């Protein structure tokens, strides 16, 4: 899988969309602390991997994809939903990285705190690189991706090519 960075996509996100994610992140961090205080570290630890931000992210992905299609005069409802579903497929693979992060913290933090945080982040990146970079997220949802065709160039050759690729 060829991984690209598209800085131009930053311009598509409105300031209030970043503000929503900032607020959700802040509130969830407070909640995770409160839950740990009230119910103990076992329940608190579960909420370190709670998908609090994911609904906002998936909704934004759908909205942006739909808007992009509507700009060129096409209906983007299905395309938007496909994009959100593909985002969820990626998060499925990402959850293994999250588990690796937790595993390293569990095993290493009692002996060396800085090494635990560095190692946990490294483990997360390594899992991302191995599973994400090798295309496992595509392989895991192969049938879905075939339908969605979001990771590929559309097989078009007619005059409408540039419009549909927009």
């Amino acid at each position, binding site marked *: *899988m060829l*991984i*690209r960075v598209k*800085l131009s996509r*930053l311009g598509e996100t409105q300031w209030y969309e*970043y503000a929503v994610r900032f607020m*959700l992140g*802040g509130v*969830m*961090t407070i909640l995770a*602390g409160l839950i740990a205080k009230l119910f103990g*570290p*076992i329940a*608190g*630890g*579960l909420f*370190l*991997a*709670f*998908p*609090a*931000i*994911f*609904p906002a*992210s*998936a*909704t934004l*992905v759908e909205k942006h994809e739909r808007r992009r299609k509507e700009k060129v005069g096409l209906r983007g409802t299905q395309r938007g*939903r*496909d994009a959100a*579903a*593909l*985002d*969820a*497929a*990626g*998060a*499925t*693979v*990402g*959850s293994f*990285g*999250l588990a690796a*992060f*937790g595993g390293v*913290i*569990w*095993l290493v*933090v009692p002996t060396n*705190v800085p090494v*635990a*945080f560095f190692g*946990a982040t490294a483990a997360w990146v390594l899992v991302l690189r191995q599973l*994400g970079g090798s295309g496992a997220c595509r392989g895991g*949802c192969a049938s*879905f*991706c075939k339908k*969605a065709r*979001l*990771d590929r160039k559309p097989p078009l050759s007619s005059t409408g090519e540039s419009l549909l690729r927009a």
Partner: protein
Amino acid sequence: MIAEYILRFVIGGVAVSIFAVLSDIFRPKSFAGLFGAAPSIALATLGLTVWNQGSGYAAIEGRSMIIGALAFGFYSVVTCQLIKRLHIHSLASTILAGIAWFSCAFLVAWLLLS
């Protein structure tokens, strides 16, 4: 007390925003989706937990986080299926799938850790 919560709010907000920006700029979308399950809340919370409660407490949270993360994987699969097979709007799907996260996380935690 209040200062600690303000600090938590700011650190959590910044961590989540950084991963959100990364998710926005990477392509293809399936790779960008990996950042949807980034350890943003964990990075923000665990540092403060070690500071306040000690490393033993943080280790227990880390162990529980493994179960939470696997529940996140199950949640994402359910979300993907709700959107693709039942054609439910993404916001409704992600909220509905929350039931899957709660059931999976608490059931497995109860079976393994209680």
